[in-house]
C-alpha cells in the first residue's frame, strides 16, 4: 500500500518501506551519506544524554542553585526565537505580499516548525516534570506568570505553523492566508513574552527591564534572518529548487533583513552596555563587567566583532554584496546569536545573590556545562539539520503560488468603498427639506 505525498509515492507496508529505504540509501550521494551519518551520530549521542535526564532530580547537569539555568535554557531560547525570527522576516512576503520576500515562505515554514519542536524538546529535557507541566499549564494556569504566557503563545504558534505548512503543501489558499497572519502575529508576541520571562526578574539586574523583550525580538529577527541566509546560500550554491528566484530575490531580501537586525542589535547592545556601566545595581553592573572584562569577555568580544561587526561590513560593502558574502555574513551572525544567547543567560546569573555553598560574594558564580547538556544541544542542532536536509531533498520547496499577500474578507475589504459610495450619494442627492421647498418656490418665481 502506498500513499502519494508531495508527488512521491510513500510505502506504508514495513516491508515495502524497508525496500524503499534501502533503495533510497543506495541512490543517495556519498557526500550526503557522510553528512547524514555525522548528524545521526550526534543525535544518537544526544539521545544517550537525554536518557540520563529522564529521572526527575538526577544531577546530570552542571547547574547549581546559584546558577540554575544552563546551556539547555540558552539553547531553548535560541531555537524559540529563531522560530519567531524566521516568521518575522518571511511575513513580509506571506502577509504583506512583498514579492522579494516570497521565495522565503516554504523554507521558512519548514525551518520554523523544526526549530520550535526542537525548542520544545530541549525544554522538556530541562524540566524535571514535563508531563506535569503540560497538564498543569492547562488545569492550573497561573496567569501572572510570563512563563505560562510564553508557553501558551508558543503552543499556539506551533499549531499555526503546522496549519501553515499543511495548507501550503496541500493548496488551501484561504486557510493558508489566515494561518500566515496568525503565525506572524504570534511571531511577535511569543519572543516578546519570552523576553518578559527574563525581563520581570528584578532579582536579576542584568535581565530586568523593559528593553529585554525588545532586545529578544530584534535578536529573533537576526537569528531567523541569519538562518535563512545560510539556507539560501546553499540553495543557490547547490542550485536547489527555486534557486533562480533565490538568487535574484531571496538573497537581497535576506540582506535587508540582516542589515536591519544587525543595526538593531548593535544599537540595543550599546544601550545595554551604557546602562550597565553606569548602573549602581550590583547585578547589572557586575554582569556588564563580566561581559566586558570578566570571565565572559573573550566570547563577548569575539561575538561583537565576528557576529555583529564583520557581518554588517560584509553586507554594507558593495564588493561583498554577493551570494557568498551574504552567506558568510549570515553564518557569522548565526553563530554570533548562539554565543549571544549563552552569554545572555550566563551574565544574568553570574553575580551571586547569596554566598551559600562556599561562594564568596565578590567573584563570579562558576558554571561548566556537563557532557549531557552539551550532547543534547549538539543533538538539537543535528536534528534540525538532518530533518531539514531530508525536507530539502524530498519536498518541493519551490516558491508556492498559493497567495499573493493577505486578503481581507470581502465584507471587510469592501466596507470602506461601500461607505464612501453611500456618503457620496447622500451629498449628491440630499433629501428635500421644507426649507428647500420654500427656497425652491421663491427662486422659481419669475
Amino acid at each position, binding site marked *: 500500500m502506498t500513499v502519494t505525498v508531495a508527488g512521491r509515492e510513500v510505502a506504508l507496508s514495513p516491508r515495502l518501506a524497508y525496500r524503499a529505504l534501502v533503495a533510497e540509501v543506495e541512490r543517495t550521494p556519498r557526500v550526503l551519506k557522510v553528512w547524514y551519518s555525522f548528524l545521526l551520530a550526534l543525535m544518537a549521542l544526544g539521545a544517550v544524554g537525554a536518557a540520563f535526564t529522564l*529521572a*526527575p*532530580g*538526577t*544531577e546530570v547537569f552542571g*547547574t*547549581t*542553585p*546559584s546558577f*540554575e*539555568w544552563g546551556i539547555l535554557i540558552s539553547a531553548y531560547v535560541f531555537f524559540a526565537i529563531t522560530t519567531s525570527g524566521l516568521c518575522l522576516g518571511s511575513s513580509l512576503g506571506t502577509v504583506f505580499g512583498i514579492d522579494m520576500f516570497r521565495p522565503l515562505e516554504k523554507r521558512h515554514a519548514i525551518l520554523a516548525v523544526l526549530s520550535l519542536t526542537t525548542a520544545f524538546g530541549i525544554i522538556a529535557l*530541562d*524540566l*524535571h*516534570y*514535563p508531563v*506535569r*507541566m503540560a497538564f*498543569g*499549564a492547562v488545569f*492550573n*494556569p*497561573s496567569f*501572572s*506568570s*510570563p*512563563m*505560562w504566557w510564553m*508557553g501558551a503563545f508558543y503552543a499556539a504558534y506551533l499549531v499555526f505553523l503546522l496549519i501553515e505548512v499543511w495548507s501550503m503543501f496541500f493548496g488551501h489558499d484561504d486557510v493558508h492566508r489566515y494561518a500566515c497572519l496568525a503565525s506572524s502575529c504570534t511571531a511577535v508576541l511569543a519572543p516578546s513574552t519570552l523576553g518578559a*520571562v527574563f525581563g*520581570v*526578574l*528584578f*532579582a*536579576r539586574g542584568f535581565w530586568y527591564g523593559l528593553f529585554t523583550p525588545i532586545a529578544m525580538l530584534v535578536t529573533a529577527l537576526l537569528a531567523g534572518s541569519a538562518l535563512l541566509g545560510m539556507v539560501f546560500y546553499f540553495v543557490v550554491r547547490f542550485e536547489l529548487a527555486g534557486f533562480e528566484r533565490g538568487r535574484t530575490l531571496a538573497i537581497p531580501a535576506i540582506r535587508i533583513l540582516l542589515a536591519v537586525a544587525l543595526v538593531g542589535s548593535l544599537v540595543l547592545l550599546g544601550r545595554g552596555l551604557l546602562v550597565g556601566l553606569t548602573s549602581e545595581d*550590583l547585578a547589572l553592573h557586575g554582569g556588564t563587567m563580566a561581559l566586558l572584562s570578566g570571565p565572559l569577555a573573550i566570547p563577548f568580544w569575539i561575538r561583537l566583532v565576528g557576529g555583529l561587526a564583520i557581518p554588517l561590513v560584509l553586507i554594507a560593502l558593495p564588493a561583498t554584496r554577493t551570494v557568498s558574502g551574504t552567506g558568510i555574513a549570515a553564518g557569522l551572525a548565526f553563530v554570533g546569536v548562539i554565543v549571544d544567547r549563552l552569554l545572555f543567560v550566563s551574565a544574568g*546569573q553570574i553575580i*551571586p*545573590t*547569596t*554566598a*551559600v*555553598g*562556599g*561562594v*564568596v*560574594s*565578590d567573584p563570579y558564580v562558576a558554571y561548566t556545562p556537563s557532557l549531557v547538556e552539551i550532547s543534547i544541544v549538539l543533538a538539537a542542532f543535528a536534528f534540525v539539520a538532518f530533518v531539514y536536509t531530508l525536507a530539502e531533498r524530498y519536498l518541493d520547496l519551490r516558491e508556492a503560488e498559493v497567495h499573493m499577500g493577505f486578503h481581507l474578507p470581502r465584507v471587510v475589504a469592501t466596507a470602506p468603498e461601500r461607505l464612501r459610495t453611500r456618503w457620496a450619494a447622500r451629498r449628491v442627492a440630499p433629501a428635500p427639506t421644507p426649507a428647500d421647498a420654500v427656497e425652491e418656490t421663491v427662486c422659481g418665481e419669475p
Partner: protein
Amino acid sequence: MIDVNERLDPEPPAVPAVPAVPAPPAVPAVPAVPAPPDPGPDSLPDGRVSLSYAGVSRRQLLTLGAVAVPCLAGATVLFDWLSGLTDGGVAANAEPIVARYDPAVHRWGFVVDTNTCIGCGLCGVACKAENHVPKDPEYARTWVERHTTTSDGTVHVDSPDGGIDGYEPGAPPATLAGSSVTDVRFVARLCMQCENSPCTGVCPVGATYRTPDGIILVDEERCIGCGYCVVACPYGARYIVPAGGDMPRGVAGVADKCTFCYHRITTGRRPACVEACPVGARTFGDLNDPASPVSVALREKPTKTLKSDLGTKPRVFYVGLEGEVDA
C-alpha cells in the same frame, strides 16, 4: 560485646526503688526487697557476678525494666520541657505558640540577631535533620554567612559549606589574612517569606503559593521543576531537590525552601533552627501578637531587612546589620 554477667559497678546495685513495685503474685516466694547481695561469696571465679548470685531473678529484672522505661520516657519529656524554658533565654517561647491552629489570625515573623550569633552552624544541622535537606552544602534551607568588614569599609561575605561546620569565633576568612579587619559577624540566612514575593508570581502552574499566615510553600505534587522561582528569588533561598540521599518530602526534582518549619509551627512548636540555636540568635513568633518574642524584639531593637530596595517586604528582620550595605 556486652556481657550481661559483667559487673559494671563495683558497688552493689541500688535497689531502693524496687520495693515500691509490688511483686507479681505468681512469685510470692521472691522477696520484695532483696537484701544487698554479698559480692564476695557470690562472685564467680573470674570476678564476675551472676544475676542469680546477686539475688535478682529474671522476673524482677523484667519488672524493673517495665518501670524504668516509662520513667525514662517521662524524664525525657520533662527534660525537653525544661530545655524549652531556657532555650534562647526567652521564657515566653516555652508556651506552645498556638493552641488550635487558625492560619488567618497569624502573621509569622523571624528576627536574626547578628550581634548574638556565634556562627556555630547548629541551626543548619538541625534544619537538615528536621526537614531531610540534602547533605550537600549547596542545598540548604538555612545557612550562615560570615560578613567580614575590613578597615576600608568593604564587607566580604563567605559561607564555606554553608557554615554548617561552624566558624571559628571572630576569625576572618583565610583570604583576608593580614588585612585590617574591623568586624566579623555571622548572618543566618533563610527564606524571607516576602509579602511581595517574586517567586509566587512567576510560577507557571501555581505550585508556589502563600498561606494566609504568610508562609510561602511549594506544592511538590504540582511543581514542574523549571527553576523559575529559584532564579527569581533575590535571596538565593531556593533550590531544586536532587535525587538520591535526603529529600524533603521525599520528592526529587521540585523546588524546596525554608517554610519556617510549617509542619512544626502549625502544631504549636517552633522552627527547628530556633530550638537548636544555643544563644537565642534566632527569634520566631507572631507579628500579630504584640507580646510575641518577635514583636518585642522588633520594638526594642533596631532592625533591617535584606535588599529592602527591591520592595519584597521580607518577614525576616536582622539586628546588627544597620551599617551594612545590602549585598
